[in-house]
């Protein structure tokens, strides 16, 4: 009896300590983001002086978004185009291939070839692949086009999407397809009416991840773009290479570039956790 009372009293204390530790971890995790967001509303002088209190200005965002010399809107558009088109390609191709590999009696070596592809692409530094693509696209004169980067990003994310989707496909009961076949459904009707609806959460999870990975990707974009086709990460890296670094504008550009991540976190958190952990757990 006395023991029970003791644990009851000890519990809240333990919880308070744990919550305190977690709040500290959250502050360490979010602190840098808060600091850069605040820096984006400072003038260069305020940032250099290190004043704690300041009156926020929108100057940096104006410069980055509306100044005639700023390439940022173009960069943002480039990133949006590359990430959306490559995500669509990845999902369609990986969906078809995943279903085919899992359900259509392919010989073992075909599956293994795709597995080796996935493993190699997961392990090899993207810079190596960037150099390979750079040479390839230069030979076929595609090097300055957004198409080459879109194709490269599609190839980069395809293996991961394929294995994630196969992991999700395994959860679809075969009876569903068999029933559809008995009803005389043809292949594409089967996919569209039966498999896609069942797989939707998995598809969304993979699509969100692929989009974010393409949006964030730097080394391949650096190798395959020029001033006109540069994506957001390449544009932000360029800030540092200028003679006089515009720190506060770099901060503003950084804040804007985090928009997709924030949207994904707010609306697709459940899917992201599912996608990120599925690869490791299965």
């Amino acid at each position, binding site marked *: 009896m006395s023991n029970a009372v003791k644990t009851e009293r000890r519990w809240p204390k333990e919880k308070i300590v744990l919550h305190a530790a977690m709040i500290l971890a959250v502050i360490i995790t979010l602190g840098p983001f808060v600091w850069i967001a605040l820096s984006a509303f400072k003038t260069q002088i305020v940032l250099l002086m290190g004043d704690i209190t300041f009156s926020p200005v929108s100057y940096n965002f104006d410069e980055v978004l509306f100044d005639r010399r700023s390439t940022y809107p173009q960069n943002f558009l480039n990133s949006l185009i590359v990430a959306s088109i490559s995500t669509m390609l990845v999902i369609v191709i990986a969906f078809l291939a995943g279903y085919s590999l899992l*359900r259509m009696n392919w010989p073992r070596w075909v599956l293994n070839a795709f597995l080796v592809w996935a493993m190699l692409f997961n392990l090899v530094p993207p810079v190596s692949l960037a150099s390979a693509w750079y040479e390839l696209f230069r030979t076929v004169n595609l090097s300055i086009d957004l198409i080459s980067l879109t194709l490269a990003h599609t190839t980069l994310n395809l293996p991961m999407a394929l294995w994630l989707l196969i992991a999700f496909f395994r959860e679809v009961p075969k009876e569903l397809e068999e029933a559809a076949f008995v009803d005389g459904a043809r292949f594409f009707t089967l996919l569209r009416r039966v498999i896609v609806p069942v797989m939707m959460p998995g598809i969304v999870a993979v699509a969100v991840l692929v989009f974010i990975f393409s949006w964030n990707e730097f080394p391949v974009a650096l190798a395959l773009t020029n001033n006109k086709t540069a994506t957001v*990460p390449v544009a932000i890296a360029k800030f540092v290479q200028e003679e006089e670094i515009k720190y506060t504008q770099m901060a503003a550009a950084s804040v804007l570039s985090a928009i997709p*991540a924030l949207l994904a976190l707010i609306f697709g958190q459940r899917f992201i956790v599912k996608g990120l952990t599925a690869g490791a757990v299965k």
Partner: protein
Amino acid sequence: MTSVQLGWMPKYGSLFPAIVFFLALAALPVANLLFLSFMEISWEGGVVQREFVGLENYAALADDPLLKAGISNTLILVVVATSCQVALGLALALACSSLGNSSRLYRTLFILPILIPGIIIGAIWRLMYNFQFGIINQGLDLLGIPAIDWLGSPHLALASVIVVDIWHWTPFSFLLLLAAVEGLPKDVSEAAKVDGATAWQEFRRVSLPLLWPAIVTTFIFRAVIAFKVFDEVFLLTSGGPGTATEVISFTIYQRFFLQDNPGYGSAISVAVIFSVALVIAIALQMQNRREATR
């Protein structure tokens, strides 16, 4: 797998696009890279000159000081950063799990660094590490400690980069380990408590052995990403000062793109791809053997 019988059209048609990408954009460029690695490539009057030099590029790898620094720094970063991330990630996962539903918000907030572009992470920390106005030196100033050149000092630069990597990727370890911790059978740890085990004994003797496979998996997943590190280094230090933060990816970038030496750059890439393939082959072999002895 013998579920439904379809004609050959859906079977081949559905895999065809993936095969095209595989052959044209994965296998072909890598084969081309292999071909280039035996060449000395130069530009003369706007025309590419290719000269076959055999294994010369590969022989040069052994004497490349940049590559040597890149390999040793990458190994240090992989081991130190990954170990810290797994330890911290496990602690956070255990704490979150024992808090149950009241830890929902923490879990959401921890994901943010994983989703932010690596380049932005580099930009943020470059500002925070800034000698003049960075928040870290400002904090030290309040404590009366003189400013430290975090990224400019050859002794500190690699450690500073490792700190950023730990900050960036601990959430990823946390996420993977949380899934494992949540999957632990409750009755076993309760049985241990009934038998009078302390929290530490229960963790050390019951939870840790059960979590071990997940810990190893997380370690491998993280080590793979750490091995490829590029974005943060590019923005924070560009490999400097000197070769203090040179990493393999950056060596490839410098040799291939900055020095415009595709022949030698390809040789480094091929060597890295080959080493990685070798590691996979050995790992698969070991796994097969372990399964065979079971």
